[in-house]
């Protein structure tokens, strides 16, 4: 794990997390692998992450991208509260934050309205019940490109990367 920010990083960093009330983890295990395969170093915070813990880790790792996943049906409520706090934090105010999963309790009913509210609260993108990950992958690739160009980092895209499930 990268804890020292002065060390030249090779890959952009993603902070992956659930919201405070959601204990599902298969989504996180899966997305950790997806992000690693997309060339990110991933910090997976796991389930039931209190807002403060997420912000603390954000300050510590200064990620290039924050990915929030929730499937328990409270994602829209928890996400709205969380993003307001992230946006209010000086260190993280500019970091792109996306959210996805199953964000309400009634399937995709109300998804359009939820997306509007979540975007206006400060998320950069919303991927509700995204079985097709390509829009998300395109977004992640865009952030990756922008970061690599800005810092002159050479992403190790040629090394085959497999993330491991962290403790």
């Amino acid at each position, binding site marked *: 794990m990268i804890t020292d920010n002065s060390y030249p990083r090779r890959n952009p960093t993603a902070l992956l997390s659930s919201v*405070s*009330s959601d*204990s599902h983890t298969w989504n996180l295990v899966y997305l950790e692998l997806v992000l690693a*395969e997309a060339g990110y170093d991933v910090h997976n915070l796991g389930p*039931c992450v209190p807002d403060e813990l997420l912000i603390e880790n954000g300050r510590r790792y200064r990620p290039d991208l924050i990915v929030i996943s929730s499937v328990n049906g409270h994602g829209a409520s928890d996400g709205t509260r969380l993003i307001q706090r992230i946006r209010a934090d000086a260190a993280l105010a500019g970091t792109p934050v996306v959210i996805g999963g199953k964000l309400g309790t*009634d399937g995709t009913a109300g998804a359009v309205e939820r997306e509007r509210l979540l975007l206006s609260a400060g998320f950069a993108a919303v991927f509700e019940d995204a079985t097709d990950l390509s829009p998300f992958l395109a977004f992640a690739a865009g952030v990756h490109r922008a970061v690599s160009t800005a810092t002159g980092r050479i992403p190790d895209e040629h090394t085959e990367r497999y993330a491991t499930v962290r*403790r």
Partner: protein
Amino acid sequence: MSTPNDMPPFGGDFGAFVRRAHAQGRLVVQPRMGFGDPALMREGLAAVARLPAATAGTITLDSYTRVGDYRAIEAALANGERLNGYPIVSLHPDVTLGVTLGLAGPDFQIQVRHGSPDPLDIVRAMSRVGLYATEGGPLSYCLPYGRLPVRRAVDNWRRCCEELAALRRPGAEPHLETFGGCLLGQLCPPSLLVAVSVLEALFFRRHGLRSVSLSYAQQTNHQQDLQALAALRTLARRHLSDVDWHVVLYTYMGLFPATRSGAMRLAEQSVRLAAQGGVERLIVKTAAEAHRIPTIADNTQALRAAADWFDEAGRFADGPGPMGGGDHSDGDDGDDGSDNEVLHEACALIEAVLELSDDVGRALVEAMRGGLLDVPYCLHPDNAGNSRSFIDARGRLAWSRAGAMPVRPQPDHDSPMSSAQLLAALSYVADRSAAASPYSTASRREG
């Protein structure tokens, strides 16, 4: 609404109810239903009670209550947001009495299902309204449900057992079901599920419970599941002879088929498993599982179908079910267990854990610390994380890496997993349910 002061709220005997139904040749079917709105919750319980089947009622609690975030419930209720379950702690006892009054009784028992490593508030709230049956366990309500240290979950669950047990009085027998037979819902080899279920039941007994049920969740292979159920019964007879116990099966708890027909086939397969495995109670899933919180109608349809399939299964007792029986290569899965691989592994795990301490709770903490129990793909900080599982060529769950557990892995199958491979493993059951032919045509066997 309120009961007169001299009349304590109903307590009931969940275990005795299930035993009676079983003696009559009936399978108790139960939903996993829960709504934030008390009126809807009552309507749902009433609909389940009315069904022409042996049913138990369920009040499933919401995620905020599970993590003890009562402020979020207030906010959600104030904003008119829908909760994913019933907030029993936040509502006044009179409101919950209004939900259960006239429904809860000797012939309709209600169980509270949650998922909290710190369940004292919940146990107190339910017992105030005469609900004495719930589920959980110090490992199974900790590892998949958050980040609280196992040590603390063990302490919390000890106190919860003691408080529940103290409610016992004539006509009221507290009941506790293990969730150990489910853990993360998928990709955990059955031996570990069986072992944790038995260990949690031992923990419950040690802390005063006299009526328990042992859970097991349907996995990837029918034949292996039958072995697991036989193993669970053998071990319960061995370790729990002095308490009332029964076995409860859960319809598949992992990634569910997205189509109605696939969901129905998988549910039917689980009823078949319940019938052949001699299970007393079944927790059913609905066709909405892959998509949203099921409605009352979703639930009653699923319960009705399960009860009908069970009647049918009685007439076709040996049939393999709509998804086939898997392999029959190791023949006898009977109770003597001579070639029951699940039983051998579960025994080894249980013995290794019980050797660590005379106190089951302490033994569980030590076992997690030493990786003697190590749940594959579990992100909990107290899980060693050195085990891995895979689905073998016969469709059985097996170990590719065992860490410190006393089970034999097949290291040939231990390779790093890509996201696509993980998703394929998670989708194995859903894909097979979608592909299987309907039971009512191709695979029905005359019995």
